């Protein structure tokens, strides 16, 4: 493994554009044969896009630049092409069919057959050989649903091995795993390395990167910032964090002087477990609070439990075995259903507005009135639809929603305007506390500024705003106080004046500093 002189992979000058966004700009990446090469960066920096370019998910021609794999230029048109060459990607969301057996999954699309019929003996025999290589002792005829996520991850790797993988790409492989499974997986990656398999691993977990990576490439805002040799000199986690967040705060945020009043909402010792894997704790003993006129940020990496915390608070919309107390102005309240939460003046604007926020086949009017129809209803529960349209018209103007009329179907609006419709809906419900989950995701810069202005206006009206975001500059630019969340635990609570991107990132990546007494 030490005689690594040649590069197995060279990606040169990769530029990938989506409508309106440059996801990757002139990115180059060299990976040495037999290395474990880590890729780091904030959410949305472009890591996954780069891997999709490499694995043919985005076919050759849909991006600029070239890929040289094993000393020859390659043009992968789809995943089959890249897999035939020995490049296999394992996505964050596992791509296994739950009701098929381990063996069937391993050879899915690559069935072991004789004369057009599946040879089950061969299938199961080959599968058990592959399972042995990844350290799994399970029977290959076991169904996928009957094994845990950690083992499923290993089955994915076995599937990759069946394709004679030379370069294995793992996208956040340990994000969904517990400590033991994570350690096992990292061990396996090292083992594969000794068998000559090169790996690219995308991870947020800096301690893991330190433990197994030979080199790290840092990506920020669609550019490759630097590549660090993990052996050359002792690279600290701080060094990597500096590369990840080293971006200047631009004046992309409206000025705002907060007038902060009494405490509106306080959450104490909040615990949430995963709805399916009920042993996995997603939110651990979290306590947060927000005061009138205050904008509070929650920073956390993907999988830290931000959305889960918010949705479990909002009518137990996520998770099981939820425990903890919620206080509104010092009085304990019951938020166990969405309508109770709304009655107590809590609103939650989702991060996934298409799935959870809007009725995309209906018009702006009916989406805006959606959570407060009662306010428009008169005798016998009939809605005053003229007044309703006037309300929608008011928001169309005051939030500057760009649409031909209030009768426009929301599915046809741009992301920014859809987000404004979602905000209108909750503003009309007139809550005291608004939880905004990634309010600017997928929105262009101009519209972002408008959203920030709206958020400031809401705070000035005396509402408490909790804003969840993946973008540290945004949190630093908008919030008065910021919590950091790491693996479901609140790890810091700082006023804006004391917060820096480095400080936040440090506390967001802090998860592994846990003692053994931590096993709740």
């Amino acid at each position, binding site marked *: 493994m030490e005689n690594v002189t040649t590069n197995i992979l060279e990606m040169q000058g990769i530029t990938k554009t989506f409508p309106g966004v440059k996801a990757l700009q002139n990115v180059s990446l060299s990976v040495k044969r037999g290395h474990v090469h880590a890729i780091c960066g904030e959410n949305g920096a472009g890591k996954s896009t780069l891997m999709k370019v490499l694995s043919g998910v985005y076919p050759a021609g849909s991006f600029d630049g070239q890929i040289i794999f094993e000393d020859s230029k390659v043009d992968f048109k789809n995943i089959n092409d890249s897999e035939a060459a020995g490049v296999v990607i394992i996505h964050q969301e596992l791509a296994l069919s739950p009701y098929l057996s381990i063996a069937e999954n391993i050879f899915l699309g690559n069935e072991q057959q004789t004369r057009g019929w599946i040879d089950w003996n061969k299938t199961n025999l080959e599968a058990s050989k592959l399972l042995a290589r990844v350290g799994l002792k399970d029977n290959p005829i076991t169904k996928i649903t009957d094994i845990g996520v950690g083992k499923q991850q290993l089955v994915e790797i076995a599937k990759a091995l069946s394709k004679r993988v030379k370069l294995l790409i793992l996208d956040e492989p340990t994000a969904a795993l517990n400590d033991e499974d994570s350690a096992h997986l990292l061990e396996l990656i090292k083992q594969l390395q000794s068998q000559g398999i090169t790996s690219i691993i995308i991870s947020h977990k800096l301690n893991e990167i330190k433990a197994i990576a030979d080199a790290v490439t840092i990506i920020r805002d669609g550019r490759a910032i630097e590549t660090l040799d993990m052996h050359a000199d002792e690279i600290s986690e701080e060094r990597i964090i500096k590369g990840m967040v080293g971006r200047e705060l631009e004046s992309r945020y409206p000025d705002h002087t907060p007038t902060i009043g009494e405490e509106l909402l306080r959450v104490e010792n909040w615990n949430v477990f995963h709805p399916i894997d009920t042993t996995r704790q997603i939110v651990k003993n979290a306590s947060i609070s927000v005061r009138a006129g205050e904008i509070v940020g929650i920073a956390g990496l993907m999988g830290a439990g931000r959305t889960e915390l918010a949705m479990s608070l909002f009518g137990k919309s996520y998770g099981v075995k939820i425990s903890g107390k919620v206080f509104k102005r010092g009085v304990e309240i019951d938020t166990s259903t969405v309508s109770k939460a709304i009655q107590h003046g809590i609103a939650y604007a989702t991060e996934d507005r298409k799935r959870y926020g809007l009725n995309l*086949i209906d018009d702006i009017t009916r989406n805006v009135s959606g959570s407060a129809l009662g306010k428009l209803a008169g005798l016998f529960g009939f809605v005053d639809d003229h007044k309703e349209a006037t309300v929608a018209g008011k928001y169309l103007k005051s939030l500057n929603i760009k649409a031909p009329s209030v009768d426009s179907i929301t599915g046809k609006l741009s992301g920014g305007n859809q987000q404004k419709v979602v905000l209108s809906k909750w503003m009309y419900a007139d809550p005291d506390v608004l939880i905004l989950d990634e309010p600017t995701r997928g929105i262009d810069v101009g519209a972002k500024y408008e959203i920030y202005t709206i958020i400031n206006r809401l705070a000035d009206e005396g509402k408490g705003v909790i804003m969840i975001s993946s973008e540290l500059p945004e949190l630093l630019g908008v919030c008065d106080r910021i919590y950091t969340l790491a693996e479901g635990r609140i790890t810091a609570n700082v006023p804006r004046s004391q917060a820096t991107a480095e400080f936040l990132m440090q506390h967001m990546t802090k998860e592994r500093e846990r003692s053994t007494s931590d096993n709740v």
Partner: protein
Amino acid sequence: MTTSNEVTKPVGEARKILSYLTGQLRQVGLFSALIVIVLFFQITTHGITLRPINVSNLVIQNSYILILAIGMVMVIIAGHIDLSVGSVVAFVGAMAGVMITEWHIAWPIAIVLCLILGALVGAWQGFWIAYFRIPAFIVTLAGMLVFRGAAQIALQNQQISPFPEAFRRLGSGFLPSFGTSGYEPLTLALGVLASIVLIFGSLRQRWARHKYGLESEPLWWFVLKLAFGAFLIIYIAFLLASYNGTPIVLVILGLLIVIYAAVMARSVFGRHVYAIGGNLHAAALSGVKTQRVTFLLFVNMGVISALAGLVFTAQLNLASPSAGSGFELDSIAAVFIGGAAVTGGIGTVTGAIVGGLIIGLLNNGMSILGVGTEYQSLIKGLVLLAAVAFDVYNKRRTGGR
């Protein structure tokens, strides 16, 4: 730029009208199809289709499908389906027969009991669908078998007949007639009244929109639609007046249409039904009590099925264990021809009624022409497919994904 604009002004105007009409293609298409079908049969049957007696029969013989279509469209808008309505019709009809002829319960009380029975049937199915979260397809498929069986048990596989005269009027009776010959005045008066209500209601609506400064549909289109609607009502009133007068089921049906159209378009409950069908998750996260709405929808469907069962039994003067078979399919077809979406969130009560009328007209016209039942079924199937294909094509054309 300006010159070319001036030159093309009349063309542009025509194009604007055309583009407005294509925007309303679904509505326009549905009514056009209805008119085309009426004209087609009017010509091929040599005028029998629009004869007063045939129109009267058309209303009476399709009433129960139209009643069922009202409940069905609500269920389908919410993204569910109900396969059990035909069996519920049989079950309720059977119980009506048992109550009236065996238990000697007065028929008005029996009617109330039957409607309550329908509500209980709906509550039973709604419980499994809304709170136990079994797909409606499965629950109502089970219901289809269960209530067919229940009907057979209640009747001990016999038929019950006859029913009291007063009860039968519910299905085949007419409002009392005044005057002995020529046009029956009460029916004419009702027709005029209905069209006046329609015109005033529409004007009030338009005026209110104006008052709130909201955009309304173009005036010519508004007038055209209103004139068409008023003409249709008065024309049908004339036809009915020259035969036996107003069928009682037409009054029931008219009330149901007005009430449920308003509920679906303007009540909080109706809005919640559309919200659930359009995006269940978003509705739940907006505070809509999705389970309760679903439950109530099925209770409502049960009551409507019971009403259809009573009307059908009264009309045939017979409670039979095999009554109502295939009603579920006719009413579902009516809803989809009427423009509802399988995925939920889209559909209207009026659309479902027009869809039901189209099916009724096809049945009626083909029977007059002597088309065999095998061909009737084949043609109805093709019409359903064509209507939905038109919908899908229309959606793709306007760029919906």
